[in-house]
């Protein structure tokens, strides 16, 4: 039996408990094993990080330099200012170093190729307004950007942007340079929200946007029309006049595939949509084949964003439906879905699928606050390990109801024993950011190994053609990066 992969380490953060309080990880149990994505799906792409030789960060540097050779930066002149735009999610991928390394190379290549020196980092946040401030410090980004790295939050000063659907609002500090460079990553992340439509464009509607725009996305435009928020901002004359180029850390469930860059964001968007569906379609479909399991949350991130094999827990909550299939109106979890549960606790309409019934119980061993998560504990039996973690949530303005729906356990051992007895299954899936694969129980491994070949065939022959057709993408028309 393969040993578990070492989980992503706990981090010191104001949004989580102190790492010293995390005395045991779920992967430490003797019944746990692991599987690499490549073992489940032999056609999974080759990755440069992690690297068997341990030189993955160097490979990322080289890939970024190579990708940026093909980008036109001639619009940036010496003396011009440039804002490199980043998002907090990148720092939770594979421990955070790959994204931090990528951002440093982007900065250095701009300076080296253009002679411009006023290059700033503007790192966006989700609902934890100092999160990227922590990453900037942790990865030495302020030093690398010569004191010009800034954490930006959606309640900061705004700027109106005229779009073809009306006025939306960006963050003033995002656009306070002569040029902007969009430096992101391609993991599918919250596919339940964006449904993998315009993934590469989405940060313009979220990470770089004011509250009015984010609220438009999540409340005004519908579960599938929402992504137009980002496209309308990006296509505005104002943003187009500032946009220099984009670069992406190209992600797969097994690790970093490479770096891609382009002057045309939509060209890159089509490519990333194609490979994103291809890379993540199989593992997401496979997770949907799980019949029953106990889920472990054990990662330095808010509840919905904890990872297993490149997939976040929120997507496991919706894995009973095909989240990539745009014919489905509402996934089992989005804020639109959550909004449509009435006061009696039942959905207002019968079109709402229940959350994934395969998830019998959740053990919250380690996860952060800073994202409204009460829906998860309300819908799925949840055990929070240790009172300190419960108190963290009880004092989080976004999670005042979270532990009302959960039970608190004094230790992980007690929680595991209770879960095994009550959930009546020995299948365990751990969302702990294990790199290149996932940690799980031996019983669940056997199920996944049995199901993977048929899933692979179905995605190749049936689902991929449908997903691409729904997004207007022809595989023949996608320009390889």
């Amino acid at each position, binding site marked *: 039996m393969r040993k578990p992969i070492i989980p992503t380490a706990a981090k010191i953060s104001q949004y989580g408990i102190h790492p010293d309080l995390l005395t045991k990880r779920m992967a430490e149990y003797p019944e746990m094993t692991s599987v690499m994505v490549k073992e489940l799906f032999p056609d999974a792409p080759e990755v440069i990080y992690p690297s068997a030789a341990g030189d993955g960060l160097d490979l990322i540097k080289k890939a970024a330099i190579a990708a940026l050779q093909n980008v036109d930066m001639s619009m940036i002149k010496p003396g011009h200012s440039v804002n490199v735009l980043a998002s907090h999610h990148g720092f939770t991928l594979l421990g955070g170093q790959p994204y931090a390394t990528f951002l440093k190379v982007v900065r250095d290549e701009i300076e080296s190729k253009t002679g411009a020196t006023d290059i700033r980092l503007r790192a966006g946040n989700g609902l934890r307004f100092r999160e990227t401030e922590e990453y900037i410090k942790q990865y030495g980004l302020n030093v690398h950007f010569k004191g010009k790295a800034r954490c930006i939050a959606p309640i900061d000063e705004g700027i109106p942007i005229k779009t073809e659907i009306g006025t939306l609002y960006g963050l003033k500090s995002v656009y306070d340079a002569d040029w902007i460079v969009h430096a992101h990553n391609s993991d599918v992340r919250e596919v339940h929200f964006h449904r993998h*439509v*315009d993934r590469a464009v989405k940060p313009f509607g979220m990470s770089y946007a*004011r509250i009015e725009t984010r609220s438009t996305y999540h409340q005004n435009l519908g579960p599938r*029309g929402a992504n137009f928020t980002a496209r309308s901002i990006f296509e505005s004359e104002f943003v187009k006049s500032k946009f220099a180029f984009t670069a992406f850390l190209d992600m797969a469930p097994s690790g970093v595939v490479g770096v891609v860059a382009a002057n045309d964001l939509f060209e890159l968007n089509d490519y990333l949509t194609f490979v994103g569906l291809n890379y993540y379609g199989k593992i997401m479909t496979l997770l949907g084949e799980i019949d029953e399991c106990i889920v472990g949350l054990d990662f330095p991130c808010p509840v919905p964003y904890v990872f297993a094999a490149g997939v976040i827990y929120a997507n496991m909550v919706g894995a009973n439906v095909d989240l990539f299939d745009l014919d489905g109106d509402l996934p089992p979890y989005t804020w639109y879905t959550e909004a449509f549960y*009435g006061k009696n606790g039942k959905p*207002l309409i019968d079109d709402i699928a229940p959350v994934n019934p395969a998830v019998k119980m959740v053990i919250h061993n380690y996860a952060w606050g800073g994202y409204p998560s009460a829906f998860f504990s309300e819908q799925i039996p949840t055990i929070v390990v240790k009172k300190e973690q419960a108190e963290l949530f009880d004092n989080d303005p976004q999670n*005042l109801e979270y532990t009302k729906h959960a039970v608190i356990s004094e230790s992980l051992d007690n929680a595991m024993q209770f879960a095994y007895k009550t959930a009546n299954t020995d299948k365990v899936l751990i969302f702990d950011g294990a790199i290149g694969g996932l940690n799980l129980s031996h019983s669940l491994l056997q199920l996944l190994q049995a199901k993977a070949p048929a899933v692979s065939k179905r995605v190749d022959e049936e689902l991929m053609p449908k997903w691409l057709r729904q997004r*207007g993408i022809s595989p023949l028309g996608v320009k390889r990066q």
Partner: protein
Amino acid sequence: MKLISVKPSISADKCIGCGICSKVCPAATIAIKDKKAIVDEEFCRGCGACEQRCPVYAIAMVKLEKPYTVAVNVEDVPYEKIKELCKTAHMHPEQIICYCTATRAEEVAAAVLTGAKTPEEISRRTGIRMGCKVECIQPILRILKAAGIDPERPDGYQWYGITPTLWDISPEIKEKYKTSGFYFDEDIKILEKVIKAKGSRGDR
């Protein structure tokens, strides 16, 4: 309804009077006097926006000795009026419009129908916008607009303006992007279905 369990504590020694806390407070409860921030504790709803954006870490959120709740009682307003206002705003009365506090459209509509005229007043009365501070500004502005109220923008960055909804997307835009994965008409259909849905009161 929201439980208020924490309040900001400002260190006068550290405060530089920059005013950012007052510019980001969704309930507009912070003023700068003599180059120091002062919180109006009667109306502070403990969201922590000030603590999260203070550039010099002069603010800490501390537990209240006696937590309390704020809420507008929906029963104080004829429900037909609430339903009508929500329908004009394209919402179901029981629709949640703040995910952190689970505030439903009916409570915000009741706040407006009992006299609240700005997002700040609505926040003070219901506690909405006091969780993530990000996602619920547009439904509030939509309900105010449906009531015929055009609130004056407060000082600072609290909010800038109302933005388009699905019902504002023009036929030309729908046609232009119809093959790109944007399902506007289908989404209108599902949202209309929600608006017309039977609520827990049993009425449509």
